């Protein structure tokens, strides 16, 4: 690993938006946990598709339609391979939220009833919480939570204790927490869940952009993630599912493209993965996401993780010099992704973010779509700085000086 203070992937120039400035101050983008910026290669791939290869897919016989088909299904193969999955069990959705809803409706409604339980964790994003609340409400099942300890981590013993109660049918959890940064031991959790005969779903929205993920190795029944956090466009999410479960499940959304045949009273479904893709799919978005995973693969996901870990270590050390700052989440960076959530005594997170923005620094403030977790942490909101492949230590230095400036404005 290079010396921490020099950690950079040297790719800043690939991201045209980072040349922008606001009130003469260069953009310092530290909100990649919300969405990533896009490299020129992704922008070009989307533009080229729309300019030269656009047609609807799975329908036309003319050459242009065949090009669009090849681009779309080729993108699926590339995106699946990026995370060690099969194209046949890789379903495109609108985002990770829709991917999770797909499972909650299609698998959940058919398999859950009174006396059953769904187990999730206290660190879940609303996207991996509300769909299960709604499912349990529809089916009269119970929703239970695995606790997050004071280090921001889950306990395998607590998981085993819950599974031993015998009523848990599905366990859903984040690979990497969007608030705490915690990297959960997903493969180990999945093996415990499988041994107990329950189904597992992982929300990988934060994980896929920042570390090598092999969904086959992890072995979860379902793994959901989203394109826009992984350098790709908005409007495309990905669901990898176990072939056996996907085969059994009824479709979530219905309409065109997902049927084999329709008559006035009956319908047979298309095969996987198209059974779950009603209507015209996100074609240009898939092409863009394929370009994004190609870009990430060329960088090397192990290098990306190494870089972001070094940067996070630098950030934790730098933030510790700011008086009154309290960082939440696991100690150190081994079990933490590329983000730090924090509070600053005497300044509300909204005001922190507002004052940082005056120095061109973009950070997120609020509950991060995780209100139950905020209550566990005993805070109404936090500020969050999250890094991407394009950040370097100089960005962190600007953040720290902005935070010190915020303390001055508040006369602290």
């Amino acid at each position: 690993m290079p010396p921490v203070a020099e950690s950079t992937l040297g790719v800043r120039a690939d991201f045209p938006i980072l040349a922008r400035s606001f009130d003469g101050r260069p953009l310092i983008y530290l909100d990649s946990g919300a969405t990533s910026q896009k490299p020129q290669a992704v922008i070009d791939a989307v533009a080229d598709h729309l300019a030269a290869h656009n047609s609807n897919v799975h329908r036309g016989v003319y050459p242009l339609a065949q090009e669009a088909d090849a681009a779309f299904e080729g993108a699926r193969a590339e995106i699946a391979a990026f995370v060690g999955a099969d194209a046949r069990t890789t379903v495109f959705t609108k985002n990770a939220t829709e991917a999770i809803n797909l499972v909650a409706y299609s698998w959940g409604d058919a398999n859950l009833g009174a006396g059953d339980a769904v187990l999730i964790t206290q660190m879940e994003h609303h996207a991996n919480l509300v769909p299960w609340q709604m499912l349990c409400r529809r089916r009269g099942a119970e929703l239970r939570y695995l606790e997050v300890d004071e280090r921001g981590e889950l306990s395998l013993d607590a998981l085993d204790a819950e599974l031993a109660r015998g009523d848990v049918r599905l366990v859903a959890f984040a690979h990497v927490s969007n608030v705490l940064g915690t990297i959960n031991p997903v493969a180990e959790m999945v093996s415990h869940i499988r041994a107990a005969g329950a189904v597992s779903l992982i929300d990988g929205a934060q994980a896929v952009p920042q570390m090598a993920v092999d969904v086959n190795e992890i072995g979860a029944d379902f793994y959901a993630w989203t394109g826009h956090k992984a350098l790709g466009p908005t409007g495309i999410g990905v669901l990898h599912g176990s072939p056996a479960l996907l085969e059994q499940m009824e479709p979530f959304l219905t309409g065109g493209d997902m049927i084999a045949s329709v008559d006035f009273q009956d319908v047979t479904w298309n095969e996987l993965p198209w059974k779950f893709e009603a209507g015209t799919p996100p074609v240009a978005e898939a092409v863009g996401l394929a370009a994004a995973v190609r870009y990430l693969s060329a960088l090397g996901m192990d290098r990306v993780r190494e870089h972001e870990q070094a940067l996070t270590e630098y950030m934790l050390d730098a933030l510790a010099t700011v008086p009154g700052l309290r960082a939440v989440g696991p100690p150190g960076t081994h079990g933490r992704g590329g983000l730090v959530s924090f509070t600053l005594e005497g300044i509300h997170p909204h005001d922190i973010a507002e004052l940082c923005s005056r120095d061109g620094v973009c950070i997120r403030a609020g509950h991060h779509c995780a209100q139950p977790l905020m209550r566990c942490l005993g805070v109404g909101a936090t500020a969050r700085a999250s890094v991407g492949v394009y950040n370097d230590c100089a960005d962190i230095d600007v953040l720290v000086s902005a935070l010190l400036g915020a303390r001055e404005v508040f006369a602290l």
Partner: protein
Amino acid sequence: MDDLYRDYILDHYKRPRNFGELDPHDLEALEHNPLCGDELGVHIVVKDDRIEDLRFHGHGCAISQASASIASEELKGMTLDEVSELGADWMIDLLGIPVSATRRKCALLNLKVVRGAVTGDHAWPV
């Protein structure tokens, strides 16, 4: 001097007027700012159709807390009819700082709470 975080805004933030609880009270409401999870509640004592006394409670940013504190001094003594007529401009003018579109709800949360308590209308003030 900072445009937004002026001395009087910070003063109201750090030493908010009329914060706490009032028991017994005649009217109450509790509202959230869904953007940030901030929470603000109010207790109101009514006498002769006027706000005789009120207290805010909850947590929020400097803009939302200062707005509530500044508004509280004006709201005391107003008739319930007058309160129900108050709009967003009243609050923004009273605050006296340039409030960006994203911070508007921070500034208006207290008025939303008070109007909710008085009229039962829980819509954002316009």
